[in-house]
């Protein structure tokens, strides 16, 4: 275990955040995002990343921060964790730094309007604080699909599974 952590540092609504570089797949410029219906509102849509289809979330919406237009410096940080690949829209990406572990402290209940539930801690350095995100929490969604079989299967599931959960009467209504 290294005594320091490498972080990708980015800006969001005037605050400086960091995520561990090991979960960062790549950082790309903004591109056309295709909207997808019936998704949580922080999901902007999907992008085509060299033939892969990747969902993109807007971190400002995720953290209920005030929205603003995307700019030239807006970036999508593509995160890869477990089997999930997700892009996060941030205001700008500034640098990659090494932060000694002893400079990391537990997070206060609220930083820059972001709930502590999403935070791993706060890193201190001369330039100021870096808020460390807990990506597991950030990328959590209420109804995250539990099915992780082959892509084929996953895409060909219709709402059968969801229907089974409902009372028969409701399901009946749905199909009449």
């Amino acid at each position, binding site marked *: 275990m290294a005594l320091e952590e490498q972080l990708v540092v980015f800006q969001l609504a005037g605050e400086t955040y960091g995520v561990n570089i090991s979960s960062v797949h790549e950082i790309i410029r903004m591109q056309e995002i*295709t909207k*997808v219906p019936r998704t949580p509102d922080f999901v902007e849509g999907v992008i*085509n990343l060299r033939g892969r289809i990747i*969902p993109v979330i807007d971190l400002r919406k995720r953290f209920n921060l005030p929205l603003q237009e995307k700019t030239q410096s807006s970036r999508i940080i593509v995160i890869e964790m477990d089997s999930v690949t997700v892009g996060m829209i941030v205001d700008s990406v500034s640098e990659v730094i090494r932060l000694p572990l002893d400079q990391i402290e537990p997070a206060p209940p609220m930083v820059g309007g972001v709930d502590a539930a999403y935070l791993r801690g706060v890193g201190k350095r001369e330039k100021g604080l870096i808020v460390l995100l807990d990506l597991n929490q950030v990328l959590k969604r209420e109804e995250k699909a539990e099915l992780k079989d082959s892509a*084929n*299967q996953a895409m060909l599931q*219709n*709402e059968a599974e969801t229907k089974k959960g409902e009372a028969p*009467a409701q399901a009946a209504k*749905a199909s009449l």
Partner: protein
Amino acid sequence: MSEYTQVFLEEAEELLESLDQELVRLEQEKTNRALLNDIFRVAHTLKGSSASMGFDSIAELTHEMESLLDKIRQGNGEVTSELIDVLLQSLDALRSLVDEVAGRPAQPVEVKALVDRLQSFSASDHKKGVPSNSPGAHEQSIEDTSLTDSEQSVIRAAQEKGFYTYKITVRLDSGCQMKSVRAYLVFNRLEKMGEIIKAVPPVEDIEAEKFDRVFLFYLVTQADQREVEEALDTIAELESVWVEKVGADVKVRTGAAETEEALPHEYRFLQTVRVDVGRLDNLMNLVGELVIDRTRVEEIGSQVRVRLGNDPVVDALEEVSTHLGRLTGELQEEIMKARMLPIDQVFSRFPRMVRDLARRAQKEINFIIEGRETELDRSVIEEISDPLIHLLRNAVDHGIEDRQERIRLGKDPVGTIAVRAFHYENQIIITVEDDGQGMDPEVLRRRAVEKGLITEEQASRLNTAECLNLIFLPGFSTSKEVTDISGRGVGMDIVRDRVEKINGTVDISTKVGKGTKFTIRLPLTLAINRSLMVKHQGVIYAFPLVNVMETIRISPEEIKTVHGRQVILLRGSVLPLCNLNQIYGGHHLSTVFKTDKGEADSGLSVVVVGASDKRVGIVVDELLGEQEIVIKSLGDFLGRIPGIAGATILGNGSISLILDVRGFVEQAGLN
């Protein structure tokens, strides 16, 4: 698991599969001696291989089966349904035992009880059943292998009648396990072509694996040399096969040692390669990527033409891109074919199943299978088995009436159930049909209300087709009593879900008193499909063609309002309209229809889609035409979205959503 066990398992599963089918056939053809012999041999082979591996329970059970079969073969017993029952039970037990060996979850097996049952069927003396050699074969000691006089005369007599005699020398692979099984396969194939008059070493020794890697048979047959060679062509693990013609005057002298050296002049290489399924899946994915890139290259080509005009470079690019298109198409087709399996993989299990179900329900059923050779993608094959089993169970249980009832109705006392598979355009169609009592839509309507699945008011609004589709509701069952076959109200909902999961559809047609027919339509492959591309409010969507009935143009005046819903009349039937905004949370239709009658061309494009029984017209801005698309998942993070089946990447790199038509129809709130 050792290599030996692996080989044993593969062999055993194959043998059990054929045993299963042959036993069911034997019940139909009670006096078919050749079949009986076949079954006997299979049991015998299994006994040998399991004994040599030390799987005593399997050996014991197969030994008893073999003894019983042998008795019948000798004419000391008859083939009855009870006998087939007990043999099939033993077979199931063997399956469980094999599962156990393979480390799969297995039913516990009462070997002892079964052995007792088998013994009570056969007499008390258990002679070891050794398959009798074909007439004319003589016991030979290994040392003396030249043809005896009597054998010579057999060959001469055969020659005069225009038969050939071949000496077939087979050398097994050095890594060959289960030598006796391979040898048996060779023996079996040759037997089908003629008469084996001699084996070196003798058959008993070959069965007991008392040989190294080489054995030989003398075969009298009318087939020519090439046919004989081809017959053995598909048997695995043979290093070489050497067929030579033998004249009656030929003295053959081969000791075992010499046979070892009698190396064939040419080696035969196998014509098939086993490929891991995962590898095929990867290939398919790669081809999918290629298809996408090909469309992109085409697109870029046309953009380049716009910019550069008629430039030789542009011509060259177009030429390459066209060629690339053709190649990709062919590649895609080849890989699809490589993934295809005959549906017999699924069908072959049905005769046994239907037979058992019919016996348990005490009904007589004539079971017909057609189109066994129809090929479909293995991913589809895997998925389609369960739904078909459900449909067949229902046909036996609810469809076919019992004998007295059929006689009373003046029908043939024996019911008929037929499963058929065939290709139709770009689809596979599978039908399951019975000539039983059919379904009465009114009864279904009442049941659904009784069970509280729908309200009276909803029920009253259903048309006939919708009534029939009630059986797809979870918890719906019409059976008066719950049998262990069916009647718990699970099944049909699973059938529909499973079929639609693989982009298929299920339709019902039925006539009270005449029977019921289920028609399943399936795509050829899951990864790539043809879709109708449409544009709506600047976004491109793909409608899988399997769900598209037709496209029409209507004028706004045609739209009527019924029960507050906008509909049109299409050839006399009412077609509800909706539009794609409804998957985004249901804008009401009227808000998006331009009722601007000032435009001369104010026609609306409507795509008529069907999902199970429903037909819905979806109003779109523009139809873009058909296209092959590669289906991609939206990923785990978004999970499953009702109404969306996935996404695809278009030629210009942008993403288009693929509609899940049934999900959409249900989401669009068409109740």
